[in-house]
């Protein structure tokens, strides 16, 4: 089932005297349960594309359809609500709330969605087990390693069972062991929960795990390979 569709998407930044085409006429489709990596050199438009898919940024031209909803037709408050219900985010620098414990960070989004306590607790525990951190439930981010923090961030992204997870360079700050561990967890959750994962990365280890690799150069898609 198609969950995401990009039609002739452009993003132009107007800097002083110069127009920069960060994303240039990109058209893509994503099916439910994909595990896709967007790769390309720095400045190729990966993060801009991911931001537009996540509704954090709007295209200058073109259309982004998520579950048949055109994001550009939504008001800003509706986009925030849309993100909360449909998209999970994983950031390069984890971005956990430092004053909250692992459990509280994970259930934050469920709280925003007013999930009942029991359901919230069950889901949090399920995710903590899935990312192998059930023994760090009450640890704050400062008490966790980088890899552990990113695993909590992945659990948070999946907490409210979104349609898809957008991960911007999720392994950039991790060592090899933590990267492999994180990728295994994400792949497992992708398969178990059938949630679409889209990464921006230039990490070869992520590319190797991805089942679809989209390559961007100067804002344009230069290749789109699906692995069997």
């Amino acid at each position, binding site marked *: 089932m198609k969950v995401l569709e990009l039609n002739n998407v452009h993003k132009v930044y107007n800097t002083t005297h110069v127009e920069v085409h960060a994303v240039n006429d990109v058209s893509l489709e994503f099916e439910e349960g994909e595990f896709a990596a967007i790769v390309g050199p720095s400045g190729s438009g990966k993060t801009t594309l991911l*931001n537009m898919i*996540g509704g*954090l*940024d709007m295209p200058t031209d073109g259309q982004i359809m998520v579950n048949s909803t055109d994001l550009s037709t939504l008001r800003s*408050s509706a986009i*925030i*609500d849309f*993100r*909360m*219900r449909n*998209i*999970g*985010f994983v*950031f390069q620098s984890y*971005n956990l*709330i*430092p*004053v*909250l414990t692992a459990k*509280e960070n994970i*259930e*934050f*989004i469920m*709280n*925003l*969605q007013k999930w009942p306590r029991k359901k919230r607790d069950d889901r949090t525990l399920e995710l903590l087990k899935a990312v192998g951190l059930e023994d760090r439930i009450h640890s704050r981010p400062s008490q966790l390693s980088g890899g552990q923090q990113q695993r909590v961030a992945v659990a*948070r*992204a999946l907490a409210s069972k979104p349609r898809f997870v957008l991960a911007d360079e999720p392994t950039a700050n991790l060592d090899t062991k933590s990267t492999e561990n994180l990728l295994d967890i994400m792949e497992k959750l992708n398969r178990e929960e059938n949630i679409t994962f889209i990464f921006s990365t230039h990490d070869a280890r992520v590319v190797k795990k991805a089942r679809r690799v989209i390559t961007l150069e100067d804002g344009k898609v230069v290749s789109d390979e699906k692995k069997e």
Partner: protein
Amino acid sequence: MITKTAWKNVWRNRIRSLVVVASVTVGIFAGVFAVGVMNGAVDQRLDEVLDNEVAHIQITHPDFRTNNDLTFKIDDVNEIVEHISGLENVDAVCDRLFVVGMANTARKSTGVHIIGINPEKEKEIFGLYKELEPGTGDYFSDPEREELAYIGFDLAKNLNIIRYQINDEIIEELRSAELPDDILSEISEFNGERFENEMSFKKAMRTVMTVKQESEYGRLILDKAQTFRERAKFTLTFVNRSNHQTGGVFRVGGIYNIPNSMFESSQVFVRDTILRRLIEFPENTAHQIIIRLYDVDDTREMTRKLREDFPELEVLNWKQIQPDMAMMSDFAGIMYGFFMALILAALAFGIVNTMLMVVLERTKELGMLTAIGMNKKKVFRMIMTESVFLSLTGGVAGMIVSWIIIRITSTRGINFGSMEEGFEAMGFSSQIYPDIGIDFFMIVTLLIILTGILSSVYPALKALKLDPADALRTE
């Protein structure tokens, strides 16, 4: 969850938050305690006015108050008093004679108001008899002695009825009161000497004491050294009903001491029987009818009723007789609220500054929160809650400290002895017992919450303007 996160966020930068909390605590304490002292002073003054000076309602001839001419009298006083006594809400009623005259001793004379009273009835309305300075008399306790007068402490000083002396007994008393030995030995030089008035005594003391010693122990020495000329004689002169100069020799039957030097130096109380005879006034007449109610809150209604019952007389309540006091009493609450609002407004700038720092420091985190779906309303609420917590923590701490200090000082009192003369000239006691109602604490709590909310508006709006994509790129 937002509330819990906001509370945890307050303590993210512990030192900075503690500095803000401490400044709010100090500000609130200063404000609440100052209001407690002011309120205590106003309440004491009000009690003084009602209990010793004015009571709740006074009735006079319509022209009497303008020029205090004794011919403007109330006739059929007994019937009027009986009628008023029968009214619901009336605790006690008495009538008085009132004459303007002169009090004279061999050395001094001064203008006074001579008030003819029935001492037993007066006791039902005024508490002035309780303010008797020990050892000066017994407040008209002997019904046979018509010549006794009850005078104020300041008048006694003015008439040189109070003298000062140093003797062995006083030196021993001062030693027991722990007066330092060096001062004791200095003032022993004056053992056996008597001084006619306070000024000459103080002058003598200054020759043996430093300014610091005087400010520290002067009051104590003055209090111990004062002696009263028992049953001291003085004359009161005035004009009678026929406009002839008259008067009588009186003896001091007691000296009252209240924190109102103006009242003390001008009001002389004598038995109404002797004054009536001296001014040749007929029975069943008086100049003033004084009324005390069970509840001061009934004053306005009772004034209205008495005006209806006695349209030919002037009926004034304490607020009309002492408008300055009424204004103080009526506007005190507004004044205190305004005072606290000013303090909180100053504190608000500190809170705004802190919250702006918070937004600046957490730009990336706020971007992340918006990205994962925290809407603007919730971001605003989180920052506002944080600001309210910050101000309320300091506010509650400040109120607890104030409450404890006010509780302690409300029983012990605070002595502004060095400013006694100034206080008493305005009718205020220099011993102030701070007092504050629970309702004021509730108002302050609301003001603190309001300050927290208002202080958060600008920083929260700044947070709402953040673009999540830009905010996430912030390092």
